[in-house]
């Protein structure tokens, strides 16, 4: 299994641009994500014939057409299941699942959870624009309560999913968030995801300029974003603000924002730890977006090593072969108790 495939010098120069016309709306956040992916892929050092992009249905899911690698445009919500098949058929591949909030969290919610639980060594990039774009503007499982769309003309009643909390709960071993407008951060996050051994989940805040423009304005508007963004860095205190003058503390079982004025005020600030095995801390981080008084964390929430599904799967095949010898169908048919399962 090639978890960190050797850098192929040729592929570093390979161009991942495909010959397809990109058909997203002008100004869509998807373009920025595509550009960064094309930039990052050669740097990851996997030759493009070892890369496969697998998507479901939705605007985001057109992605595989636009990358010159293997690609799979699959059934609505089912990309994780198809990816499981692909990865187990050929564990050497670098598998990328491209999905949206509708695709992965409504119709495909089930498949997403089980992919995380199994820790298959693949990367999931969730383009979260909080709307159904392809079908022209209906609310999605991440649309906020009260959101008016064509199918919620009087405001949505549904409590939205928090994708980060959801995948943490499902046991994802790598969880990160980035923003379409912050290209450097996005590229760095994709690289981290690729390097992680196990199921990497990246939520990208993606602006749908046509049906949900400005959904993430508070973290993309240059005038206000510094006050609303918390960049996570392993080992660094949770400090934010244009002048780094605010921090996050744990008060009881709750996170609190604290103004930093003087060295003493830094006492008790939380220090970010990506490898915290206990979910509680990371879960609190994931819930920050539901608190108007707290900033939105971006970066790597968690990066935890645990055995991957493809790894243990292949291991089991080796173990059984070692114990029972290499199987031979002819012999199997004439062996005494073959048809008894005990």
């Amino acid at each position, binding site marked *: 299994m090639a978890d960190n495939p050797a850098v192929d010098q040729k592929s570093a120069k390979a161009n991942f641009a495909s010959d397809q016309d990109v058909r997203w709306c002008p100004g869509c956040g998807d373009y920025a994500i595509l550009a960064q992916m094309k930039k990052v892929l050669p740097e990851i050092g996997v030759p493009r014939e070892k890369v496969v992009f697998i998507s479901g*249905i939705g605007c985001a899911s057109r992605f595989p057409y636009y990358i010159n690698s293997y690609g799979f*445009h699959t*059934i*609505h*919500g089912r990309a994780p299941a198809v990816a499981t098949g692909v990865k187990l058929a050929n564990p050497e591949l670098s598998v990328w699942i491209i999905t949206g909030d*509708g695709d992965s969290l*409504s*119709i495909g*919610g089930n498949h997403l959870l089980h992919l995380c639980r199994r820790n298959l060594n693949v990367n999931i990039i969730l383009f979260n624009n909080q709307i*159904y774009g*392809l*079908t*022209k503007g*209906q*609310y999605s*499982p991440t649309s906020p309560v009260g959101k008016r769309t*064509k*199918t*919620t*003309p*009087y405001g949505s009643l549904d409590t939205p999913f928090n994708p980060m909390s959801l995948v943490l709960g499902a046991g994802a071993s790598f969880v990160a968030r980035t923003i379409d407008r912050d290209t450097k951060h996005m590229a760095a996050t994709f690289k981290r995801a690729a390097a992680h051994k196990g199921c990497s989940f990246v939520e990208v805040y993606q602006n749908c300029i046509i049906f949900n423009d400005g959904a993430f304005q508070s973290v993309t508007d240059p005038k206000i974003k510094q006050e609303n963004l918390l960049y996570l860095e392993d080992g660094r205190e949770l400090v934010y603000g244009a002048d780094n003058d605010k921090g996050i503390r744990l008060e009881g079982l709750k996170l609190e924002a604290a103004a930093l004025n003087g060295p003493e005020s830094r006492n008790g600030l939380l220090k970010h730890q990506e490898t915290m095995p206990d979910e509680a801390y990371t879960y609190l981080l994931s819930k920050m977006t539901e608190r108007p008084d707290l900033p939105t964390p971006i970066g790597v929430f968690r990066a935890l090593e645990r055995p991957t599904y493809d790894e243990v799967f292949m291991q089991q095949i080796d173990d059984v072969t070692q114990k029972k010898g290499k199987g031979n169908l002819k012999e199997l048919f004439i062996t005494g108790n073959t048809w008894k399962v005990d």
Partner: protein
Amino acid sequence: MLQTRERPKPVVLPAYCKGCGRCVSACPQHCITLGTEINPESGLIPVEIDLEKCNGCGLCFAACPEPYGLTAYDPLMDLDESYLKFPDEDSSTAPVPQEISGETLPLPPVEPLMIKGTYAAAIGALLAGCRHFFGYPITPSTEGAELMAKLLPNLNGVFVQAVSEVATVNMMYGCGGAGMPCMTFTSSPGFSLMLEGVSYMIGAEVPGVFINIMRGGPGLGNIGPEQADIKLACRGLGHGNTHAIVLTPDSPQEMLDLTMLAFELTFKYRNPVVLLGDGYLGQITGKVKLPERMIKPGIPSWGVYGDDMHRRNLICSIQLSEPDLEIHNLHLNEKYQRIIESEQRADCFHCDDADTLIIAANTPARMAKGAVQVLRDRGVKAGLFRPITLWPFPIDILAPLLPKLRQIVIVEASNGQLEDELRLALSHAEIIDVPPISHVRHFGGVLPQQQEIIDRVLETIDTEVTS
């Protein structure tokens, strides 16, 4: 006065015992053994008890996890046989469910509306009394759902955008099971996903209206108009012996009229009804006259509405014993037969004297109608036979036209699925003397055009003349 009384001994209630065997190991006297026979009511294998050695210690009662698995047998009391069975309906003290009848209300006359097909169907549903909509966005059907989302809330109605088509159809199962008219708009891939639930609805005899605005397939295909779900709707509604009435409108007006009819039929037969439109029909705008009456539905006697009156009702598709399930299938088949006999519908255009019959449904029928007019102008006795029900196929209406015919041309946006329905119907009706059948077919969002229909008809006539 002191009275000794024997301690009660256990009796197994076979319908309630799940055969877990806890009592078997609990009994120190080894009175209880695992059974060998399936209980027809529960489908499980209850234990058997031999009371000869039983001393009434009571340990088995404590061991049994089922509230009614074992009961105490009091020798002073006569054990009534019926006690050993599930209470049947007649012994229930609940009231006998009655129908709460609906009403037909006059609709004040209004000017015809200029609306697209999906909107017309949505309005038809509202006029038929549907106040419950479940659906999942899918092009090209979503506009119908969007209109429902807008109109339903202040009509005291319910609109739910489900998380998938699988969720949608099960919401309909619940709502239809309560006896309420409900519907969805979907398109081909979504309809595929719903079929499991459709089979359950047919099995449990739950009404519901499915409007499938068919698009190009197979697989993801595209969002262009196709008729490639005819096979699915007529022959493939999930597993089991299933059928449902399939209606095929050809105009926004019929999108409304047939949606209203669909609601009437779905309750009349307690069976889902499928309305097949095509992507083009969903989008085109046309003049739509509203009916003179609208429906205020009641609650059917069988509905599990959740009130005192309907307490006895049960909606389910499970029949564990083989003979029972066969009886249920016979009942469904008898229903399908009644539908075949009384619900065939078709529109005949210039059919009476026709020697050339074009058969088409949905949007292709519009092109075919144009072709018939041109052919008539050129002196060809052409007619259009347009099935309005595809299942049941309107063979009884078609059969009398056949003797006069020199040819049949089937025009469809699928690979012969309409033709298959025709040929099956001819075969079942044992009609052997059939004129030559040719066809014009297109797929993938391409629709048959008027000129090629004309060419096909003339081509056949020419070969006839020259040969």
